[in-house]
């Protein structure tokens, strides 16, 4: 009787509350309207406006100059090539992580997760430390063979870009394909083997077709990241190799051709949004019903010479590819190398690069001491965490509780749009839209944290929603029946359960803000640089001290963001989080 009475009452309650609850959408939507849609609309307007080339001048230039089409071609080419190479390394890695249990596997998994969260500038610096003219390999060869100049020119070539992209994105393949693979019933391929298929044939006819959706999703995501890669290409590509992303930056910052930059941004936006839509469609298909098994069943110990060899080689290769640049970076920040060393022949080990972080050796007027940049970065990151949580929590709350409602089905993909927009496009939008009335934020210190919040917002929502959804209404009802007031329910039930997810979201926002370079490079004021901006400045200046300081700053940033990633892995409750 009581239950049916409650059910009778429920509809009226449900009917009355919504409009007030929908107010929670207000802040996130206003934020997106002002700082995403308004800038994007401004870019569109600019690209369509009259320029020296006439109406739609930007697009005219884009399609009539061979250079711009060449840039688009190169963007696609390097992204495709990077994706193939990433698969070539990632798929064997995914195989051993999915099918075998071995000592040190957890460590290997954790280590392979680090590159993905590292700021692009750190990765670029790491490859400089390994392969650059003053890197370990070149200085080593110079010392060994008494060469006057660095023998290898890997940096400023396609090779360096590809290597950095593989380093960056192998994690995606390892995680997405590896996780799926680890739940795929090995008896399916066993069955094919017994029915007369050789090892390879069984993989081709049964294993691969079943994994194809997972492989395709991972590939698309890798391609998307390679397509929008900015910092890596700006630093490692040199002056001659430009992708769309770098070209937008160049046209804006160096050539002031805003209509062309706007047209490029629209092309970039169209491409990334198409890929994002394709990605979400594919990701939905991965969840098609398959007889998934627990890892306990699908994984086996490494026994026998053959599997020992396979696991050893693949794990070794993964470790080499994914940790050698990081080790090179950390070591390079503590080592005196290069021509100066031969002249001075001081000790190899040095703390100079760290000790100089607080000094302004040339007494230069425009010089910003690194400690100040570190302080800027930390302040911006703190502000980003506060902003992203303040906007992300209400949005995630609504998404979690009305998951079926029509409004949410519209708003959910809308919130994810910034994820499918490249960082440089976001920054360019800020420049175009927010430097004149009605919204003139040119001088505002909030410009950078707002930009970072835009980038972090989808990640925050995506990590909070599943956690909120996992709290069953029953728990709240049970607490209420036991005499808890709504406030007590929030304090004793919701917050403890959501607390970890909030921490994870905060760590995401913090890491993203610390490492963000694409948007920041366009919107940060020169006298208030962030750490990645300063690393870029150091890397583009000559001299051992500049290079060493870039290494030192990158190492610090790597430690902080890597630590953040490990904290996320540690805090994240199993299977919560939609990545």
């Amino acid at each position: 009787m009581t239950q049916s009475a409650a059910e009778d009452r429920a509809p009226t309650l449900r009917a009355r509350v919504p409009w007030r609850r929908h107010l929670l959408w207000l802040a996130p939507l206003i934020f997106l309207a002002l700082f995403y849609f308004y800038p994007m609309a401004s870019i569109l307007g600019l690209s369509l406006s009259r320029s020296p080339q006439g109406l739609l001048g930007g697009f005219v230039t884009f399609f009539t100059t061979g250079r711009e089409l060449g840039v688009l071609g190169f963007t696609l080419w390097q992204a495709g090539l990077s994706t193939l190479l990433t698969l070539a390394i990632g798929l064997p890695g995914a195989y051993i992580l999915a099918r075998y249990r071995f000592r040190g596997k957890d460590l290997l998994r954790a280590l392979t997760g680090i590159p993905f969260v590292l700021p692009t500038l750190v990765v670029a610096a790491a490859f400089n430390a390994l392969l650059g003219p003053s890197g370990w390999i070149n200085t080593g060869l110079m010392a060994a063979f008494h060469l006057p100049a660095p023998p290898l020119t890997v940096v400023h070539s396609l090779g360096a870009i590809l290597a950095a992209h593989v380093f960056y994105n192998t994690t995606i393949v390892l995680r997405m394909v590896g996780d799926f693979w680890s739940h795929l019933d090995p008896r399916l391929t066993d069955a094919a083997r017994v029915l007369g298929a050789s090892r390879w044939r069984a993989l081709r006819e049964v294993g691969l077709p079943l994994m194809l959706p997972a492989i395709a999703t991972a590939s698309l995501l890798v391609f998307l990241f390679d397509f929008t890669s900015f910092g890596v290409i700006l630093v490692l590509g040199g002056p001659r190799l430009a992708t769309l992303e770098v070209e937008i930056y160049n046209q804006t910052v160096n050539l002031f051709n805003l209509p062309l930059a706007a047209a490029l941004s629209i092309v970039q936006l169209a491409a990334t949004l198409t890929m994002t839509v394709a990605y979400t469609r594919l990701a939905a298909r991965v969840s098609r019903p398959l007889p998934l098994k627990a890892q306990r069943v699908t994984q086996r110990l490494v026994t026998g010479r053959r599997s020992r060899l396979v696991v050893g080689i693949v794990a070794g290769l993964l470790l080499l590819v994914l940790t050698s640049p990081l080790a090179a970076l950390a070591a390079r920040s503590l080592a005196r190398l290069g021509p100066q060393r031969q002249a001075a022949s001081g000790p190899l080990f040095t703390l100079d690069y760290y000790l100089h972080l607080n000094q302004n050796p040339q007494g230069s007027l425009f010089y910003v001491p690194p400690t100040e940049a570190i302080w800027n970065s930390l302040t911006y990151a703190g502000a980003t965490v506060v902003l992203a949580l303040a906007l992300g929590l209400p949005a995630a709350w609504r998404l979690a509780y009305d998951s079926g409602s029509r409004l949410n089905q519209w708003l959910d993909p809308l919130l994810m749009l910034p994820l499918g927009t490249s960082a440089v496009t976001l920054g360019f939008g800020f420049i175009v839209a927010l430097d004149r009335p009605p919204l003139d934020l040119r001088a505002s210190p909030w410009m950078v944290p707002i930009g970072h919040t835009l980038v972090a917002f989808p990640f925050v929502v995506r990590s909070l929603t599943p956690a909120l959804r996992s709290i069953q209404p029953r728990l709240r009802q049970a607490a209420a029946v036991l005499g808890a007031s709504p406030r007590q329910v929030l304090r004793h039930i919701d917050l403890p359960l959501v607390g970890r997810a909030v921490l994870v979201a905060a760590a995401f926002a913090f890491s993203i803000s610390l490492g963000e370079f694409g948007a920041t490079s366009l919107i940060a004021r020169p006298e208030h640089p962030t750490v990645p901006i300063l690393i870029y400045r150091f890397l583009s200046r000559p001299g051992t001290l500049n290079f060493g300081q870039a290494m030192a700053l990158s190492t610090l940033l790597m430690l902080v963001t890597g630590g953040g990633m490990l904290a996320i892995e540690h805090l994240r409750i199993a299977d919560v989080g939609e990545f």
Partner: protein
Amino acid sequence: MTDPQPSAGLRAVDLHKAFADTRAVDGVSFDVQPGGILALLGPSGCGKSTTLHLIAGLETLDSGSLLWNGQDLSGVAPHTRGFGLMFQDFALFPHMNVTQNIAFGMRMLGQPDDNIRQRVEAMLDLVGLTGFGARAVDELSGGERQRVALARSLAPRPRLLMLDEPLGDLDRALKEGLMLELPDLLDELEQTAIYVTHDQEEAFAVADRVLVLNRGRVEQLDTPEALFRRPASPFVARFLGLDNLIPGRVLREGSGWAAETELGRFPVQAEAEGQITLLIRPDAATLDGEDGPSVLGGVVERSFRGSQIRAVIETTSGQRLTFVFSFWEGFPEVGAQVRVALDPSRAFQVLP
């Protein structure tokens, strides 16, 4: 009928396989003659499935040997052994329809499309799924999946078919129907087969010989009837549902032997004195008999099973014994004291 050559069929000699901490298969030997059906019977974790995987070549032997028609199988890859294996939960390929699943093995053999098409139709008819060819695997019921899996493993005409708990998850009615069909089907095809199960009824219904496994070791290898008539160990007896096992001692008594237990002294067949376990068969008891061996006790449980009545008797020493009586004997209610007479010619067996 000619005697098959001694080396024809499968011969397993002293198979050993250990995983990290357990000896999954520990010295198992047996033969399967062409056309014969051997059941591997035992509780879960006794090494049945591992034995199958060793024969299929999906696992490698630690030691021992496998021979087919006298030829050593070590180093022969699973896909070239020509054996079929029907997996425990069928492992049907979810991205292929019924026809594609059944055709897979023949495609691997490189058979021409026409042959494959005809054979698939024939197999569908054989397992009673005519017209199901275009169905997706996830549209099938449990029984239909089982039939598709059977058809798939039979289609390439394997020299040896292995079935791993093929009736495992099916519901009881379906299981009993298939239990009657399967041996007929395998007989008709003269299919050499190894049948793994934990269910003794299934093993007895399907196989012509049964191998009982316990913790990777062979407890007994016999025909179903011999197995039931003379279980070789307390483990086998218990596994077959013969639970009346009492510790005792064999002594010489006159010209024969007797077992001395807490319930008294019973005449047995034996060869030497010593500690033994005495099995009292539940189906060799009556309520009338005046003299001869008997046990006294109170009825503590009584269940009506149609033509039989199953009763648990608790003796004065606290030992509980289960017996099966004919319905027509009119068995007393719980609480009554009874004297159960035991047929000396078949009630007692000495187990090690």
